[in-house]
């Protein structure tokens, strides 16, 4: 009996270091999301009629591309314990910019560049208010969410621009030749690689985690917190602007209501992918898996004939479970551990 409880106590103390390497690699949040993704894919392929088709890959990745793209800068922003709620409104602002310039006869290449630049400018406004004025990003971007959306809807009113050059719209819908993979994935993979390298393999990236864990400590360790955050908001705006251009071409329409609510899908996927809303932790591969997971669940359920409202409920439940559940289990674990420490039954 004495021996047993000693053993238990020793185990408790040793846990962080006694875990085997394979466990440390596989039992991460990211690995769990990737595992869940694989499981959902396998199940869907075997259970849902017509899921097992190249068309699924094409449609899924094409529709998810804007979310995948914006999730990259969003990951970095949330790791620094900030947030950008205005991304979907920036998508709309960019879309409307492209639409108006095209309608009024500007060269389409210029319109696309302007879409990205307007996005970057919108991001700079967010960044300025957060870093220079010093307001919390939650408040700033709730405001700019409404403001950018209002400007977008105001500029085009109830009209929509739907006439875009065929070469560009077909490029947005094209696949990489010989594969069912949309061409936009080339852009995404390049961007994802850049973001992953910056986040995981540069001092700038390590600085982001440091800011998220303890902003003051990061500041005194020589991280330029304000400049870092400003850059992130501008990048977030620019990527959202690019996503807006793609969105416009993919769906063939520019209107103020475009991408309404997309910020929630993006943030939900980022959190599902293992990024902590309290900053300081997260990884690009987990986020990509998170976006794909939500997208595939929706796609499979749609194919299975489940209606949109039910799909929203199911997706919401999965997200709530994964976020609330982790806190609950952490609490459970702590109370078990303290019970063991008091010499209670072994867990």
């Amino acid at each position, binding site marked *: 009996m004495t021996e047993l409880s000693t053993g238990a106590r020793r185990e408790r103390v040793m*846990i*962080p270091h006694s*875990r085997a390497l394979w*466990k*440390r690699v596989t*039992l*991460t*949040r990211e690995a*769990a*999301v990737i595992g*869940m993704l694989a*499981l*959902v894919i396998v*199940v*869907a392929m075997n*259970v*849902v*009629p*017509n*899921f097992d*088709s190249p*068309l*699924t890959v094409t*449609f899924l990745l094409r*529709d998810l591309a804007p979310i995948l793209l914006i999730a990259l800068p969003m990951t970095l922003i949330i790791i620094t314990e900030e947030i950008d709620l205005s991304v979907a409104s920036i998508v709309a602002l960019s879309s409307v910019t492209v639409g108006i310039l095209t309608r009024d006869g500007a060269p389409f290449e210029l319109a696309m560049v302007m879409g990205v630049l307007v996005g970057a400018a919108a991001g700079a406004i967010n960044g300025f208010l957060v870093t220079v004025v010093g307001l919390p990003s939650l408040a700033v971007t709730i405001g700019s969410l409404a403001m950018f959306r209002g400007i977008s809807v105001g500029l085009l009113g109830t009209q*929509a621009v*739907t*006439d875009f050059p065929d070469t560009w*719209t077909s490029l947005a*819908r094209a696949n990489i030749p010989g594969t069912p993979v949309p061409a936009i994935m080339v852009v995404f993979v390049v961007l994802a690689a850049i973001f992953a390298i910056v986040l995981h393999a540069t001092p700038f990236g390590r600085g982001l985690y440091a800011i998220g864990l303890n902003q003051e400590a990061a500041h005194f360790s020589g991280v330029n917190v304000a400049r870092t955050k400003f850059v992130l908001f501008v990048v977030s705006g620019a990527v959202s602007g690019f996503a807006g251009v793609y*969105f416009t071409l993919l*769906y*063939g*329409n520019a*209107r103020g*209501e*475009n991408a*309404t609510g997309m910020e929630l899908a993006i943030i939900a996927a980022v959190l599902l992918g*293992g990024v902590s809303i309290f900053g300081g932790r997260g990884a690009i591969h987990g986020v990509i898996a998170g976006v794909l997971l939500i997208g595939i*669940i*929706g*796609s499979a*359920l*749609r*194919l*299975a*004939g*489940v*209606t*949109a*409202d039910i799909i*929203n409920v*199911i997706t919401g439940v*999965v997200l709530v*479970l994964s976020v609330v*559940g*982790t806190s609950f*289990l952490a609490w*459970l*674990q702590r109370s078990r551990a303290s019970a063991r420490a008091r010499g209670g039954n072994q867990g």
Partner: protein
Amino acid sequence: MFSRHIAQRGRFVGVAALTMAAGLVLAGCATGDAAEPAADSGGDANLAITFLPKNLGNAYFDTSNAGGAEAIAEFGGTYQEVGPTEASPTSQVSFIQTAIQQGVGALVVSANDPAALCDSLDEARSAGVKVVTFDSDTNPECRDIFINQAEAEGIARVQVEMVAEGIGGAGQVAILSAAANATNQNAWIELMQAEIAANWPDIELVDVVYGDDDDQTSFDRTAALLQTYPDLAGIISPTTVGIAAAARYIQTSEFKGQVVVTGLGTPNQMREYVEDGTVGAFALWNPADLGYLAAYAAKALVEGSITGAEGDSFDAGRLGSYTVGADGAVLLGDPFVFNADNIADFNF
């Protein structure tokens, strides 16, 4: 402590994954029949037909799609209804894609934008899916057939006939319209004037007033009309806001039972006025018939008996035979007249 925390998260996500997977299995089992293209029914033709309304939870489309389901049950196809929760063209795209993946025979769409859905519908058509639009059309080159609910001549004539019947074919009438520059209403008013001049010599159109599709303004204009023309026998309001406001004024005034109110309205809006006798009859198209006709048009396209060319004709069950007009449009017919006898059958 930190890594333990993570491990627990991992385990939890695993549990969530299993739950999700189980959910998917159940969903697949429960709805597999509906989602499977009905390759074996209706001979060689793939009569799996998907209805895609502008949005779900809309009583108008519940009615029209029920009509579609009725028709599809009659000819032995497979009916499926999908749609976004909010009415936007972008959110309809993923459902068009799903229909392509499922390999359905035909897609019946009410488009949230005339042009924005074209690329997706083109993809569907090149994958062999027949595309029928109803209620709200796309550009003609993006679909095979459009089921048009009503045309201006019919709308104008039926409204004049309703007021004529109400006032006994003679007397003063006025029109309570929407905004003064409303395109649809102005076209109808012109046709109503022509119809009265041509066929109703004893009816005098004394005035056209504009309620701007605002309830209070329409209500005030109705009051003013009755002040100005003490002998006014009837009011035609070719707009759903106007007819309801006019009926509400008449209901509580001394003119109830003396002045006929008619025009275009929806059953849910007009029910109390019809039930208490303020309004005898009003018109709109019947969405159930619209969905029913769309389903039969889809069937004819899938079976290859028509291509959507002008002059093609097809059978539409209880509605009889229809012929495709210019631009691949099929006209449902005259507006449907709602009255005390049939209003209980409608909920939209």
